[in-house]
């Protein structure tokens, strides 16, 4: 009897599993919540097709999956250093610029980077910076600065907020911040400088509540954590949540004067894309100012599209962490990939940091 029920369920399942799709489909492999639903609808009506999204939550996931040979994706949205890895692995299709007239909307400051010289394979989609986020009420009360990495690393300040601070659980991000604090480049590879950075991190570690990359948004909103090293999008989200929950405080973004990490996500086309024609159409569509602005208005992401500015909410436009003023922009750096030997050294230092008391 049970077997019969299961068999029936199986039959129903198969019936549901294979709907006869006649409409065109664009397969987008994206970060979750990284395109506004209304943008998707608009594109679907323009192209007379369905957008099918699959998600990853880490560039490494995307790289691993493609390296193992998974296919079926049209457009991917990797971060710059992952773009470089994909180009090196020969996994991308060169872009036909003639099909991308909207490329003219992109701010030249974000084009022709060392990751993809001449933008043969990629165009910038959206970006974020790794900065300081803080609870305005508490930090003002304590009289702490919010424009320097010292507040995250210097015990002089940290002792006032002991146990109320989190930093990202990412060796690359945290080393970059520490290197910046010490006055080096985020991409500095001198082992002596790395040792110095590791020492800074080790000294500050006892004051931190946690290495946290996922739930610090919530902790900020609730008011358990007052100070974080985190992504600009997340800090924006935390403030939105705090206002929606009618908290008495704001979660603000602090931009460190020493500089910070910039992460740019780019649209690229998979070498084995089933529908490269739709992929190009989609990329050009997303380069349109209005469509590009939707995402910024939704999640507070940085936007490399000049034409998008007039559609973006003014309160987001004036956030320096999202739209960096020129003097801060000069101090932003995109993280480069490490060599195998460098990665090994960094992992060793990171393990020591994690294990230390």
């Amino acid at each position, binding site marked *: 009897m049970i077997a019969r029920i299961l068999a029936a369920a199986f039959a129903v399942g198969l019936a549901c*599993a294979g709907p006869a799709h006649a409409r065109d489909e664009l397969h987008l492999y994206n*970060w979750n919540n990284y395109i506004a639903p209304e943008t998707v609808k608009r594109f679907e009506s323009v192209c007379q097709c369905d957008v099918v999204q699959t998600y990853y939550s880490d560039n490494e996931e995307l790289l691993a999956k493609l390296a193992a040979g998974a296919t079926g994706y049209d457009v991917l949205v990797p971060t710059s250093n992952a773009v470089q890895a994909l180009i090196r692995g020969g996994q991308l299709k060169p872009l036909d610029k003639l099909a991308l007239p909207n490329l003219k909307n992109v701010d030249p400051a974000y084009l022709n980077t060392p990751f993809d010289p001449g933008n043969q394979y990629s165009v910038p989609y959206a970006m974020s910076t790794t900065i300081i986020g803080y609870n305005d009420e508490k930090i003002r009360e304590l009289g702490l600065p919010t424009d320097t990495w010292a507040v995250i690393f210097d015990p002089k300040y940290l002792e006032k907020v002991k146990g109320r601070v989190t930093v990202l659980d990412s060796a690359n991000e945290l080393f970059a911040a520490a290197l910046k604090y010490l006055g080096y480049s985020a991409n500095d590879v001198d082992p002596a400088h790395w040792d110095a950075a590791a020492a800074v991190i080790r000294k500050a570690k006892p004051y931190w509540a946690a290495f946290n990359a996922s739930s610090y948004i*919530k902790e900020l909103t609730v008011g358990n954590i007052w100070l974080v090293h985190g992504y600009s999008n997340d800090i924006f989200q935390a403030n939105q949540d705090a206002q929606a929950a009618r908290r008495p405080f704001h979660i603000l973004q602090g931009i460190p004067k020493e500089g910070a990490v910039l992460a740019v996500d780019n649209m690229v086309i998979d070498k084995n894309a089933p529908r490269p024609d739709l992929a190009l159409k989609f990329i050009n569509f997303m380069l349109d100012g209005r469509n590009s602005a939707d995402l910024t208005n939704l999640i507070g992401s940085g936007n490399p599209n000049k034409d998008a500015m007039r559609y973006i909410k003014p309160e987001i436009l004036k956030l320096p962490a999202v739209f960096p003023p020129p003097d801060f922009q000069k101090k932003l750096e995109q993280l480069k990939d490490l060599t195998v030997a460098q990665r090994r050294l960094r992992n060793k230092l990171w393990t020591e940091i994690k294990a230390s008391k």
Partner: protein
Amino acid sequence: MRRRSPWLRAAAIFAYAFLYVPLLIVVVYSFNDSRLNAEWVGFTLDWYRKLASDTQMLTAAGNSLVIGLVASFVSTVLGTMAGVAMHRQRLRLLPILIFAPIAIPEILMGVSLLIFFVLLNVTLGLVSVALAHIAFCIGFVAIVVRARLAGMDETLTEAARDCGASPSRAFRYVTLPLIMPGVIAGALMAFTLSIDDFVITFFTAGAGTVTLPLQIYSMIKISVTPEVNAVSTLLMLLTLLLIIMAAKLSPSLFRSEGEAST
């Protein structure tokens, strides 16, 4: 043993609390009127309303369910066969082949299956995920069934054969009903394993195939909303229903008779 010690009762309460309180919290917070799963604000059905119109989440849940049912059904049939074969014959190679997928790290299995599917030119999608799940579930079902067989009185089957039953009839009417609790336990285990598997599913799912764990995991970055609680609550209800149904259809399934008399 009529009188139970209060310690035993306390231990039982603690164990059940440990198992069920987290689930209860998930259910309670699915009715919470706040985007944050942090504190109770007020009662609402908004998350269920939101879920009803969230085709992506529903598709993911549907996919998980279909894959779970198919994988548990097929792996139960194959796993039972494997369990019986291992019990009856002293085969050397079979146990290794059956149990290896349990011992192999999931990530290894996921990557190898992906490479295997790519080599065979199998389009990645529901079918590839279901096949992968069947592959790792068979071993678990086989273990449970074999354990059940080991505790069974072999003379019963022999008696049936003596009375003139063919081997297949003896299996159908004597052995199978006796090991049924093991088979059902194996099926439920396979269903649970399949429905919450992340690693293997991640590698074997193709473009556009999303299961519930994949969907939830990708949401972690932007913080999980109570909509996930809502969909989890519905899934729990469904699973509970399935178990109740199984118990109703065959009341002896969840009782371990036999043990008491021996």
